[in-house]
């Protein structure tokens, strides 16, 4: 993961404005990386019910959409090994993904889909950045169509901005 910005101090020493700014930075700088996965399960954002900055730098966010709930929680820098996971529960199955740290050649994440009759796991030797560059080369050479349309990426960004705005407003509203 990335280095922590500055030394923000304890949360009670920070004004609501500063906490809101730090949380916005957390959403757009860190949480934004999980938005594409999140939107697969929560395509539209109805409400943000919890938005809290966590010292020294992290966040706790709860998002709702219709009958689904998502929770995003982060803390950094940690002196322990990096840990980035995604977990989704459905009526018939569970999905759990463990990612290695970003920007390292440590292979892909490990995804596990659990069902009552057993588990399936996926893991590949290359990471997401390598896959994206290889795919981009294929697109440039007209060997493939873009796997993720530009509009989808724009929608991810709009979702992240909406989330950041709502989280910021929630903190400012709480004072």
């Amino acid at each position, binding site marked *: 993961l990335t280095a922590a910005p500055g030394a923000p101090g304890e949360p009670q020493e920070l004004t609501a404005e500063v906490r809101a700014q730090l949380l916005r930075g957390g959403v757009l700088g860190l949480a934004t990386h999980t938005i594409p996965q999140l939107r697969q399960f929560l395509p539209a954002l109805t409400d943000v019910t919890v938005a809290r900055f966590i010292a020294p730098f992290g966040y706790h966010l709860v998002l*709702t959409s219709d009958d689904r709930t998502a929770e995003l*929680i982060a803390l950094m820098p940690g002196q*322990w090994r990096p*840990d980035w996971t995604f977990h989704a*529960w459905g009526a018939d199955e569970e999905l759990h993904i463990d990612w290695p740290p970003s920007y390292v050649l440590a292979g892909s994440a490990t995804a596990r889909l*659990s069902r*009552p009759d057993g588990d399936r796991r996926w893991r590949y030797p290359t990471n997401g950045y390598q896959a994206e560059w290889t795919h981009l080369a294929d697109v440039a050479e007209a060997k493939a169509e873009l796997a993720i349309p530009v509009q989808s990426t724009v929608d991810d960004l709009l979702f992240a901005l909406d989330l950041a705005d709502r989280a910021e407003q929630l903190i400012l509203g709480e004072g």
Partner: protein
Amino acid sequence: MSMWSVALPADDPQTAALHRAAVTSLPARLAVAENGTADRCVVSGRAANWLERAAAAITAGARALLISGPEPVPVDEARQLARRAADADVIVAVDSPYVCDPTFTSTLPRLHEDIADAAIIDSLVSAASTATTNALGGALLAQLAVVRRLLPTFDLAPAAAPSAGHYLFAGSGGDRVVTLAGVRTPVSNEEGLQLDLVGVHRHWHIRFHTAAPARPTELTLHDAAGQQSIRPRYESAQRASWRALHQTLESGTPPAYTLDDLIVDVTFTEHL
């Protein structure tokens, strides 16, 4: 050391089987009373009328009760049972599936030391989607028992509208973020409780399993030195609860998790 006879719940074969295994593994202290008369009695907390059954067992002359895996009940009625038990000098212990777990309880001193460093206490309990309608309520009580053992006071509020399939409560205990989530899972081997104490210096990951009675709880500490797994204890929470209750009857030490502890947790859920 005295030997005590134990009556198992005839109406809940699964709970009875778990406790039969625990009781028969303590042959110097306990024996199953096959004819139903006993000085100790297990009451299945999964029964909707478990308070009535507990009261009936007191009337029948039991000297001690073990309430196994209780699901929520009205707090006033739980208090009535506590008064009735006190008047009859009957000990009521609660077999909560996680808080009495020996691997967890043996590590509590280290966890208490590290609570000061924790910025996040994040917990998630999974109950089988085939379990009773109120299983998530029972899971919440079991989850609260563990979190309160680590952090006695905290404030929580619903972070999303609860459904039959999930709940999410969020709040704080001091400067720490505290979350309690519960989901129904279709995957039986995923049942249990996960708890993460996350601070800048240390990250404890705790995984309690309920799908297999002998599967030990996993406690792993991640810090700058690497990771350390706590030596697992292959003893179920039920067996530990029975050992503690036997100790209570022999020497007067309090049970590992009491009816009063349960009343505190039930009261907590009524305010959510």
